[in-house]
């Protein structure tokens, strides 16, 4: 009988390219030592050898197996170290973990996606999936918000999306400058501007907790049922398999039962937006 796999040991991956997305956000393009599959919305634990580990949802297409892109915002000491890496560095990957986006529930539907800040990373992976699936869905509307024009990430993605039939992408910034000719305001303002056929739609929200809270409230007020609003609950996922307890949210382990939940699954819990 083969020796059981050690669940704590990472797979090695080499850093190929570093892409600057914004002053605080970079995308690392990794080549794992063997093919790596994931479902869109699942996450990985990325290890900096001997230093630390942090959870990230890959921002690349789930259909690409030999490369993996991880978009990282500089927020703490581990992410700061990730930002200092240069091509050739060897990192560790554990996963994929958890339950990703329920793409099968998007079949023949309009998909409204609300993203904020670095929360666009998991959404980009979902968008790549939906682009592959464009014959199976009715329409995709992306509403993305960031603090300033400089904080907008994946700038080429918006041009690409707006050139694909059935896809449309809208952006808003909290504070505009003279270069900005799109919407100024919080991301939920965009939801007033797009025409959505709510009974035929599902919604996806990913971003900072406060943005998720207000986006969910807005979607509910638009008539979205609680079970068709999908939220990426990014908590302090550490082990990835429901043992260490760091991401426990009520009876759920976000790492194992999520990170994607429908709002009706978690609305009974205290403090979900913290």
């Amino acid at each position, binding site marked *: 009988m083969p020796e059981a796999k050690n669940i704590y040991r990472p797979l090695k991956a080499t850093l190929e390219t570093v892409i600057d997305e914004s002053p605080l956000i970079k995308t690392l393009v990794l080549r794992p030592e063997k093919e790596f599959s994931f479902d869109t919305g699942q996450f990985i634990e990325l290890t900096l050898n001997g230093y630390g580990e942090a959870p990230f949802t890959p921002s690349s297409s789930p259909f690409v197996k030999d490369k993996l892109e991880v978009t990282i915002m500089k927020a703490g000491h581990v992410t700061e170290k990730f930002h200092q890496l240069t091509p050739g560095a060897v990192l560790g990957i554990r996963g994929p973990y958890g339950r990703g986006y329920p793409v099968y529930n998007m079949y023949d539907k309009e998909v409204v996606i609300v993203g904020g800040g670095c929360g666009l990373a998991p959404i980009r992976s979902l968008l790549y999936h939906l682009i592959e699936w464009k014959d199976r869905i009715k329409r995709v509307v992306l509403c993305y918000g960031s603090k300033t024009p400089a904080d907008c990430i994946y700038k080429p993605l918006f041009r690409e999306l707006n050139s694909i039939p059935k896809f449309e992408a809208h952006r808003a910034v909290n504070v505009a400058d003279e270069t900005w000719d799109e919407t100024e305001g919080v991301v939920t303002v965009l939801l007033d501007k797009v025409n959505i056929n709510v009974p035929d739609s599902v919604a996806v929200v990913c971003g900072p907790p406060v943005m998720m809270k207000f986006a969910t409230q807005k979607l509910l007020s638009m008539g979205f049922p609680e079970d068709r609003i999908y939220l990426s609950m990014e908590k302090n996922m550490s082990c990835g*398999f429901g*043992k260490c*307890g760091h991401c426990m949210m009520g009876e759920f382990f976000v790492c194992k039962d999520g990170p994607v939940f429908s709002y009706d699954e978690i609305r009974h819990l205290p403090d979900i937006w913290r």
Partner: protein
Amino acid sequence: MDKYYLTSRGSFEQFLVSRLTESTIYAPFRRLNVLDYERVNEENVKNIALHEPLPATPLKTFFLPIRKNVTLDVNGSLPAIILGVPACDLAALDLLDAVYLDPAFPDDLYRKQREQTILIGTDCHSHLKHCHCTIYNINPFPERNCDLVLSGYQSDVFIRILSDKGQKLLKDMCSRIPVQEATAGDLETVKLKRMAVRDDITRQNQGLPDLKHTSTLLKQSEYWLWKKYASTCVGCGACAAICPTCTCFLLLDRPEFEKVRQLDTCQYPDFQRVAAGEDPLSPLTVRFRNRYLCKYVWRPERYKVSACTGCGRCIDACPGNISKNELLTELNTGEVKISQHA
């Protein structure tokens, strides 16, 4: 009653000494006021404290040490026999096994150690001030999760087999020392002692709600209760460290992509804090409440097993004199028993 075997305390000690070349044996010993596990050797075997409640260290520490490199293989130490495990600690294995042997992500190190260890449970012949196992449907004598059960009275050692490993060990015992089948008459004293201890524990915990009711009450609990009882909490995490079912951990990184698993607890600040700064378990009152909800609501709902086995260690260990039992009794009956919280 199930089949029991009988040997003498002297013969049993002889058997333990004869097994020392094949197994590392741990048993409880009393030093001053502390009862805790130590390694058995030829000299100390006579001092093993069977049937006393309660080893200071919970059984979990054998399988989930405070700190362990989990990316290295298990070293080739002798298989262990752990003797003198109380029923509350054995009951805790229901939850530990559910978490660490989860078929989707089995922890291979934990599995190997569980498989290589022989557990010998023992009846409690008395109880401590905070023992309350019976409130949670656990008798103060082992009925599951071990290989053999020892019950004793004076110089007699009664042995019950609970697993194949136990059967094998008893067979080995029979080849080394005199062992006979116990008669119903022999067992009468054992039975009476068990019932007496069980009833005493139930009696001393009048007013403490059972598991199901505790869960209902906690779901309805209000913030003032948590604020009141958390007022003397210093967030030291002693309650969780000493708890037979608390097993949350931190994964630390070491060179060569090695990982070290270190016992952690939701009672420590920043346990759930994310890089951007949000911390769902802040302030301390929220952390304090979290442990109760985890034990009596969330873990039981998820794993269908109890996450508190009524050992009472958390009450003894608390430097803030916080009694979980007083909190739950107040929640249940509205009566406040302790002056400092009144």
